[in-house]
């Protein structure tokens, strides 16, 4: 289930290379879980229910219809506009570890047959932080949705703005908000999914601007960090502060959806908001390990237009 989405690797090591059949230890409850069982359960611990983090590729592969994904702008990579000490090294390391050029993957795909523009942030890539590239990719995928009158679905998982790009990162809050704002004006639906963790500048921009906001159980969601808040108020915060469930009670998000139900809920919402039906999924549009096909044209026209 987690494996159909294969993309050109920028580094050599992939988390996908773990040999099947190993036992892994749940970092939450400590239970030993057979690796394949964990994968089959979409990385939700069968013992404690904890939703372990997914990489952006994994996220898309468990969400999108098989072989429906057409990636955009896979080759966009961060530079070092501030000449910030150590940034280039951190980027190289993150690229090697994740196999991605930066912390977001965007494109167009199908969810239970509904065509949608889609993006996913990758917490494994420098904490999913939003620098110029993440901002640019989110903006481009929103513009693509606008152009093709598609819905937009974004999975956030981010520590916030990327400080190594200074004020340029901060401005990505405005840039992405402007792009998402155009979808609102065009009456196109935008569904925001907050995964563990979604904090800082990403919450203060597109993640909180969805028509419907969904979170995964237990996900950490908040603007300021727990440590900063505890220093400010000089008190310990309760355990469930800034969890998805806490945000739900405080009226900040629409629903908390367990991972196995998420695809179904998204499809239901896409149908409700008039997403176009995809034509029958292309049989293996992209070769499993070949070059990416970032061509801007769509493989098949929508049967129905978004309202």
């Amino acid at each position, binding site marked *: 289930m987690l494996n159909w989405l294969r993309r050109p690797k920028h580094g050599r090591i992939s988390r996908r290379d773990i040999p099947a059949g190993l036992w892994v230890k749940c970092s939450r409850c400590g239970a030993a879980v057979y690796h394949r069982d964990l994968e089959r359960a979409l990385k939700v611990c069968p013992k404690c229910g904890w939703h372990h983090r997914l990489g952006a590729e994994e996220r898309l592969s468990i969400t999108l219809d098989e072989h429906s994904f057409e990636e955009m702008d896979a*080759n966009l990579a961060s530079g070092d*506009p501030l000449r910030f000490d150590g940034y280039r090294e951190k980027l190289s390391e993150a690229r090697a570890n994740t196999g991605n050029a930066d912390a977001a993957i965007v494109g167009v795909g199908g969810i239970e047959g509904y065509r949608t523009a889609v993006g996913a942030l990758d917490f494994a890539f420098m904490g999913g932080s939003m620098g110029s590239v993440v901002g640019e990719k989110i903006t481009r995928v929103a513009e693509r949705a606008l152009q093709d009158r598609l819905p937009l679905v974004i999975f956030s998982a981010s520590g916030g703005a990327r400080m190594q790009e200074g*004020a340029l990162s*901060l*401005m990505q*809050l*405005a840039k992405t908000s402007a792009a998402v704002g155009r979808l609102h004006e065009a009456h196109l639906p935008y569904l925001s999914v907050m995964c563990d963790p979604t904090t800082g500048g990403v*919450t203060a921009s597109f993640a909180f601007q969805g028509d419907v906001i969904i979170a995964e159980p237990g996900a950490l969601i908040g*603007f300021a960090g727990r440590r900063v808040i505890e220093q400010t108020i000089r008190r310990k915060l309760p355990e469930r502060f800034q969890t998805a469930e806490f945000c739900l009670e405080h009226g900040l998000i629409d629903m908390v959806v367990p991972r196995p139900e998420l695809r179904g809920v998204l499809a239901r919402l896409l149908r409700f908001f008039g997403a176009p039906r995809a034509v029958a999924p292309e049989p293996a549009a992209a070769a499993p390990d070949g070059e990416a096909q970032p061509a801007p044209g769509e493989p098949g026209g929508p049967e129905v237009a978004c309202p």
Partner: protein
Amino acid sequence: MTRALPERDRAAEARAAEMEARLAGIQREIDALRRRSEKDKPDAVEQIRVLEARGEELRESMLSIRTAWQAVALARHPQRPKAQEFVRALLDEFTELHGDRLFRDDPAMLAGLGWFEGQPAVAVAPCKGRDTRENIACNFGMPYPEGYRKALRAMRLAEKFGYPVLSIVDTPAAFPGDAAEERGQAEAIARNIGEMTRLRVPVLVVITGEGGSGGALAIAVGDAVLMLEHAVYTVIPPEGCAAILWHDAGRAREAASALRLTAQEIAALGVVDEIIPEPSGGAHLDSQAAIAAVREALRPRMTALSNLPVEELLRRRYAKYRAIGYHEEQS
């Protein structure tokens, strides 16, 4: 797309650190003299005068070098004119509005109506105090969500009547407290940023002190974003950056330099449109001159923006933010 900045002037930073050490020495000498001054009066007074003059000289040359940390210090200077002072001076017949119509009136955010050079306008500004008592009252210029929601309400009023918005920005951050989180600090900031990208009236922003991350941007998305010479604009406070990078908030000076937060650097990144020169030595030495400089800088922009058709205004605003960012294409 934004251009990358040149290497930092590390020599200047080193010089500044050295000068500051000398200045601290002079200050210690002055303090020592003062402690003795009851015994040995006329002589000590003269010595102190000389030392103070030397200190002042040193301070001025430090200003002329202006490393990032000095910019931070000036931007945070307690005598620096406050955002609300700018608003009240720039707008005639200022009338303050209160409340978000939802939960609370946040004293950390000022919103109101007035006339800028004969043009009705709506202004928003975070409030810092001039002393501890005032600072406690206005939460050290750190708004709660209700502060941002009050500002948005005022901006929507401006939109209804077709009046420009003037935002004066000087805030260390959105308040990082538990109650602020519970009431949707992120949501409030995200909403303001989103609405400001498409507010159908001209929005003019001046960063006059600390442009503190999302808490500043929540009132700083505009058609013209100006910045006072010694103001700073940053994605994270230097102390926080240092704590994350080196687990040592004390290395804030290095972080400030790395973050490229001075007006000159921010302008070079294309994040602000214009730097407004301050009175010699900094705005805190002459508030009136600083306010006059801001007024002069705003006047032609207010006129030009007010003459643009709304659709053109919005097209340009979008294009402006659309272009900010730096990336490379990997093969």
